[in-house]
């Protein structure tokens, strides 16, 4: 069953994922699955906010300010990326604070 993602959802990065950033792109290397993933500038920003424990809505507020988009659009983008990261087991939902 897909985990529910809403504005209060927070995540934790998987411990066996290596992150390396290069200018405005980043690469995630999953040591267990042996797969690597590319993140664009927005994806990299979302990953960094996941690491500091930001909730989905907190991430959306930050992106809306930084990229001059609506919070609703930003939250859709955050939710979509987090869903992908969950499917690839790069992050897991953490318990709400």
């Amino acid at each position: 069953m897909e985990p529910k993602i809403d504005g209060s959802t927070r995540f934790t990065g998987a411990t066996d994922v290596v992150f390396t950033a290069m200018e405005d792109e980043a690469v995630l290397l999953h040591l267990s699955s042996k797969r690597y993933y590319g993140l664009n500038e927005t994806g990299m920003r979302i990953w960094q906010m996941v690491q500091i424990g930001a909730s989905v809505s907190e991430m959306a507020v930050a992106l809306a300010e930084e990229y001059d988009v609506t919070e609703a659009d930003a939250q859709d983008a955050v939710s979509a990326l987090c869903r992908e990261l969950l499917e690839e087991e790069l992050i897991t939902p953490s318990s709400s604070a």
Partner: protein
Amino acid sequence: MTPHDDQWPSAPPDDRHSASLSVMGVDCRVTSNTGDVIPLVRAFCAPGAGITAHDAPPSMALHIQVGRGLPEIPPGAAFRFEHFGTVCYSDHQSLWLQDSGVVGRLIGGEAFGLLCWGVQDEAGLHGLQRALIVTVIELLRRAGRYQLHASCVARNGLCVLFPGEQRSGKTTAALAMARGGWQCLTDDLVFLCRGPAPDQVSALGWQEHLNVGVPTLDAFGLREHVEGLRTDGRFTVDPAHAVSPAAAGLHSPGVIILTQIADDARSRLQPAKRGTVLARIIRHSPLVLVTGIRAEEHLSVLHDLVAQCACYELHAGRDVLEGALPALVGPVVEVAD
């Protein structure tokens, strides 16, 4: 301890045939129960000999057991990849290799490899030679020498890397640059290591035979120097007839050029985003994706390599065969230097 561990010694047995080699600046002790195989390994490692690196030499060990049967690969080991006939598996303890008449094990994080050569026939000899490729590359990785599929040319202490998969134009690029006065470290296999500064990366070249297709063979006048025909239809050529070898030792990468062959008369060279380059060269460093051993450091080395280089994409047109590449690359190298 698995039921299979007793078939696989975890350290070099005390067999009397041995040799000490230096491979890419790493001290390698090779042992065997027979003296026949030592010269074979020495010849195999010759392209990597005579090189010193920045650090005190790390060490690795390889034992080759001949004619004592073939141990089993544990059924729990999962398939990882195939490298020109050598099939590789891994479990949480080891990397396992299998080829014609040969099985091997590289234990955990140790710089020790064991190859068992069951039957000393021609097929088994070729299997051993192929298995040695994967074995030596992985042992070198554990000793801090990280493989990258790339050609590499050098001049005045600075080198240019052309990473790429098979048939991407790496060898042609190296030959074209050599024609323009550059020295060739390798047309296929670069080893990266840290140094001289902690955040710097240096390159070492492993040069064996050149592998070229017909257009390159003819464009560079190499037909009379063909030594053999590969199963993939490409020709092997002694590099002594084609390129001026660079001095053995460390070189400093300053430019990375991702190459793809374009159906075009003229080549185009354009700046590439470093993130894109990093993702591409990860693809040409396959062993970082197989085991977690030193993967983080390997990725860090690739990151720092890209960070220290100017990065470009080359759409290689037919003019590469006519000598256009050195003039195209020259200006970007001058900026990087």
